[in-house]
């Protein structure tokens, strides 16, 4: 049975139209015109217990809106959501007991108090038995290294420390589902890696189902087997990450530096996807043309100063999907 069920989900926002000037401002007090914007339209998916799902898309695609509906913060315009049999916005408090939520952009901790006080408060709010609280705290403190800043007011923590405290806080009550909205945003490489290791660990050892949104493709690559790709409020792709990589895997990227300025560069068998002065990025399908063939062809007509061949990066793949639609590629 699936743990999360989303069927034909819609969310419409009514945004008041701003009117120009002083007179407009006065008029808008009495009469407002609204523009409606569909943030989410007809999204459906199911998630099984124990999965780690990457929920990705460009800014404004509807990621956060979906997460907020799943957590019960927002009421859907239409459609159904079931989280472990509970309709989130109807039974917010009941739903809150089975989910953990981390918003990377804003903390859920008490700003002016030492981190430890937030944990104690959450213990009260979620009525966590002392023994379980102790055990969880010990585990998280060890893996996340919370001990060093436990007594520091949250407002004085670094972003990395705050995120560690935030994720620990979200897991204190042993939720079965964890929602992470951009959990690695703004973190440095080491902190990111630490966060990923922790997420992986709680998924594998505690069986916590994880849904995460991110702009960092390495998060997806390291954590998720499945990804749901959305754009303009609709699902563009839902499936294994590996499948997309495999399709794209036929492609290679050749980066060449030419001697002298060359405008109107083109080459049969390869597609120029970027140009910066003398540097050209060429994408080719290795089943149709080999790298050496291509390089030979180019060197017959141009002077090559330098070159490099690489796998297409996942960011690039995603960009292609946004631009051309999934059907064109997979």
């Amino acid at each position, binding site marked *: 049975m699936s743990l999360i069920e989303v069927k034909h989900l819609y969310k419409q926002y009514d945004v008041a139209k701003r009117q120009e000037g002083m007179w407009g401002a006065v008029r808008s007090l009495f009469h407002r015109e609204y523009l409606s914007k569909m943030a989410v339209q007809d999204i459906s998916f199911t998630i099984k217990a124990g999965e780690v799902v990457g929920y990705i898309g460009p800014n404004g695609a509807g990621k956060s809106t979906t997460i907020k509906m799943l957590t019960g913060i927002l009421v859907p315009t239409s459609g159904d959501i079931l989280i472990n049999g509970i309709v989130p916005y109807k039974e917010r408090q009941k739903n809150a*007991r089975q989910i953990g939520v981390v918003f990377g952009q804003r903390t859920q901790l008490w700003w002016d108090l030492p981190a430890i006080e937030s944990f104690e408060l959450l213990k009260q709010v979620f009525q966590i038995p002392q023994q379980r609280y102790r055990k969880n705290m010990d585990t998280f403190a060890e893996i996340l290294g919370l001990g060093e800043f436990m007594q520091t007011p949250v407002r004085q923590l670094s972003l990395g420390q705050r995120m560690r405290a935030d994720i620990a806080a979200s897991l204190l009550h042993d939720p079965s589902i964890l929602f992470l909205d951009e959990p690695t945003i703004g973190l440095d490489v080491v902190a990111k890696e630490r966060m990923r290791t922790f997420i992986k660990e709680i998924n594998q050892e505690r069986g916590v189902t994880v849904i995460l949104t991110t702009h960092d493709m390495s998060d997806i690559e390291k954590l998720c087997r499945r990804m749901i790709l959305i754009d303009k409020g609709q699902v563009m792709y839902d499936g294994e990450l590996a499948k997309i990589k495999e399709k794209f895997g036929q492609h290679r990227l050749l980066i060449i530096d030419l001697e002298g300025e060359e405008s109107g560069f083109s080459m049969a068998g390869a597609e120029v996807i970027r140009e910066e002065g003398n540097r050209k990025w060429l994408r080719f399908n290795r089943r149709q043309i080999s790298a050496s063939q291509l390089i030979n062809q180019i060197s017959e007509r141009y002077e090559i100063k330098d070159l490099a061949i690489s796998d297409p990066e996942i960011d690039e793949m995603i960009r292609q999907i946004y631009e051309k639609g999934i059907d064109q590629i997979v």
Partner: protein
Amino acid sequence: MPQIWLRNIRMYLYMVGASIRAQMQYRYAFVMNILGWAMTYAGTAITMWVLLYSFGAIEGWTFWELIFLFALAVLSWGVCMVFFFHFRGLDQYIVNGTFDRFLVRPMHPFFHFMAMKFDVGAFGQFLFSTIAVALAYHHLQMHWPLWKWLVFGGAVVGGTLIQGGLLILISAIAFWTTRSERLYWAVMWPAKSLMNYPLTIYPPGVQWVVTFILPFAFVNYLPSLLLLDKTGGGYAPYWGFLSPVVGPIFFWLCLRFWMHGLNHYKSAGS
């Protein structure tokens, strides 16, 4: 049901403790806040004295009677501030998206938000109003029987709920417009200044509004008529008994409006 209430109250007290500890982190601001408010009110009292010095009395109210009227309003406003003053900043939580957290915890969102701050800064109000009421009591040579003390207590409770109700009513508008603090200053401040003087100095339309729509008359004017054995306008003396009834009803209506607004909560982007 009683168990849930007991649990909520226990949690409220626990969070209140945390809120006080948080405010103590800013000791200097804490002390200045108390002194600042006490002096603001003392300033208003001096204005009244200057006014009365030239006019003798306003609508048959002497200086100490006016001070009593004023101090009663400040006292219930002080209690109201302790519990509800931070509601005026609800719009900031909504704009920043920090309001989200109140919806992902197993606690009633209103209770949770209310518990976020227990404003100890209101001691300035208590300081001023207690001294002012005591002085007025002395100068007017009053000797209240028990029932008058009950009316006094009822006026404080009712006044707290009426003013608290209006505060949360205004704050709820932020659920639709994401801005409400300006409205607070535009509505609450004039309304409170209005209450510093006997209602009968205002036109009948104003009197009608503050009696039946936004029932500020029940905060201090009507109970004061009863407590100071005065008559005024078309109000019968027994109206003063009604504060502890009007207060909870008005508050309940405002709370319903707040909860209705909550369903329109749009949350901040990303």
